[in-house]
């Protein structure tokens, strides 16, 4: 079955918007991380769709790179999350405003 490249591209867009919406709406940092992952996957999917469109393997190579990146990012993110929980005893992202300009 030959699928046109528009379909995965549209799915990528939907996934990205879903992820963005979750990112903006959720305060729990676990969900924030998850939504970032969803957005990354959307980007990966878009790479594959683009590879389909031009008939090259470059998109799939990039997807592997994105996967690696996402894994690394998730590792760092989870560590930060744990540290944050230790410091603030909460996972509420809006409570983590240590970077705010004081005064």
């Amino acid at each position, binding site marked *: 079955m030959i699928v046109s490249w528009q379909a995965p591209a549209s799915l990528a867009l939907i996934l990205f918007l879903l992820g*963005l919406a979750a*990112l*903006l709406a959720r*305060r729990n940092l676990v969900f*924030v991380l998850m939504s970032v992952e969803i957005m990354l996957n959307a980007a990966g999917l878009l790479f594959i769709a683009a590879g389909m469109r031009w008939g090259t393997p470059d998109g799939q190579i990039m997807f592997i790179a994105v996967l690696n990146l996402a894994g690394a990012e998730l590792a760092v993110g989870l560590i930060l999350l744990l540290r944050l929980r230790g410091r603030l005893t909460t996972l509420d*992202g*809006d409570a*983590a*405003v*240590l*970077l*705010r*300009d004081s005064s």
Partner: protein
Amino acid sequence: MMRDIWLVPALPLAGAVLLGLLGGKIPARLAAVIGASSVGLAAALAIRIALLWFAAPPPGDAFLLPLWTWITLPKFSAVVGLLIDPVSLVLILVISVIGFFIHLFSAEYMEGENGYARYFAYLNLFVASMLLLVLANDLLVMFVGWEGVGVCSYLLVGFWFEEENNGEAAQKSFIVTRVADIAMLIGILILALRFGTLDISTVLHGAVSAWPPGSFWPAVVAGLLLVGGLGKSAQVPLQTWLPDAMAGPTPVSALIHAATMVTAGVYLVVRLHVLFLLAPAVLHGIALGAALTVLLAACAGLVQSDIKRVLAYSTMGQIGYMFLGLGVGAWGAAMFHLASHAIFKALLFLSSGAVSMRLHHEQNIFAMGGLRTKLPLAFAAFLVGALCLAAVPVVGCGFFSKEFLLGAVWAQNPLLWGVGILGAFLTGVYIFRAVFTVFFGASVDVSGAYGVRVILPLTVLALAALGFGWLQTPDFLGGANIFSNVLAPALGGAATDASWPVALIGMAAPLAGIGLAYALHQNGFWRRQGAASPGLFVRFLQGGMGFDALYRAIFVKPFLWTVRVLKDDPVDQVFQLLQRAAVGLHKRLREEQNGKLRRYAGWMMAGSLATILAVVFS
């Protein structure tokens, strides 16, 4: 011997430096000795030089001692040098000899004051500057002395600095003369540009060969220089500072504001008379302004109650006479009146100082009275001075000099002569108003006796005032021409003598004035005038005819207004506006940096979207 002339200004200067450096460390007596002896030595030297001069005048009747090169540049040079000629010789004698006696008087007058050494340091510095002024061979060097005497005058008028009023008077005297000096400086600049030097003889020769008489530039230059002279000499319209300058110690008034500094303007015109002859319009202006000054001073002198202010206005008026002489080209007569005025006015100030010394520095004439018997020495000295000032015939030097001067004026312009006679009449009235009020009538209590440092100057000056006039007498009194003969090489021959009716009127006017003063004293008018609160017109006269108010309105107030408006630096305010804008923007933007991850992410997305859209649709 002539080469030692540099010591004449250098000795007082050394005295000033010595007193300035040692000031507080030496006993008062030593300070007085240093102060007086430095001027005394200068006076002795000046006398010696004068005697040599009269014995054998140097060739050309001028002696120039170049000292050192001040400035030598391609288009301008100035050499510091001292020039002796008859004019400067007469003046260094007047300055150093009278200066010495005033130092002597001061030593007793100022006894027990704070800053005794400081006083003598200033006074010595003044004498040095004044001597430099008259000896200078170069206008720029003269300007050094010119400003130097101004600063010393400022410091001495404000000598009792704790009094706010003294400080204001001192500032006023300096500022008014400074305004005049700037005009003079501009005149000097024009000469420097034109001739590349300010050496007086070079400039005068250059002016004569470059400028035809009556042309534009000599008038401008002479006018500007004249303004400087008018300021220093307290002539209309720059006379307002002199009465206030009486805030200084009385010997200072005697030396600076009567005998020497205020005559610097006369000296300037005499020294540059060649230039002024090229500008007849300026000479007319001088004569006219002088006539105004004579009348203004005489009218104001009639209503003063402070004895020093009476004398201040009389100084103004007498210098007016000198300028009257200058205006008609009678240089020698003006110089003679200058010298004679220096003697009798110093005498008047010193004797008035001697009076107020014994009255706890009282200066109001209506608080005095009957002092003729209590203070006979002061009375005699003041009387001699007053007779000279009023120009009572034959008695004092004032008569001879004024006679000589008014004779020259008559020959040129009878109308101005009339003003002069009117002035002489009024002078007789106001000075004898003071004499009668202070020394006659009901007496006040005084105590104490004078020391030799007061007696000697008063005696010597009184004798000099009586004798000096015989150097230059009218024809019907022997026709001596000693003074004008001395000056002749520098200033040309003596003026013609006036005819006898003219001389007779000249002699009658002061006598009439004194008679009127006596009559009004007899019927008690002066006392009533002193007791009554002054009317509008009298107040107008007392205040010097509204010049102060006028200047306050057109100069002082606008200046202070500008100062007030600009005080906070409007340009800085503009820059502060920028600063405020930056701070405001900072506050707005800072609110966005709230640390909320989701807000940041939202902005990032919005930014990315905007960028993509911009790329796609461009």
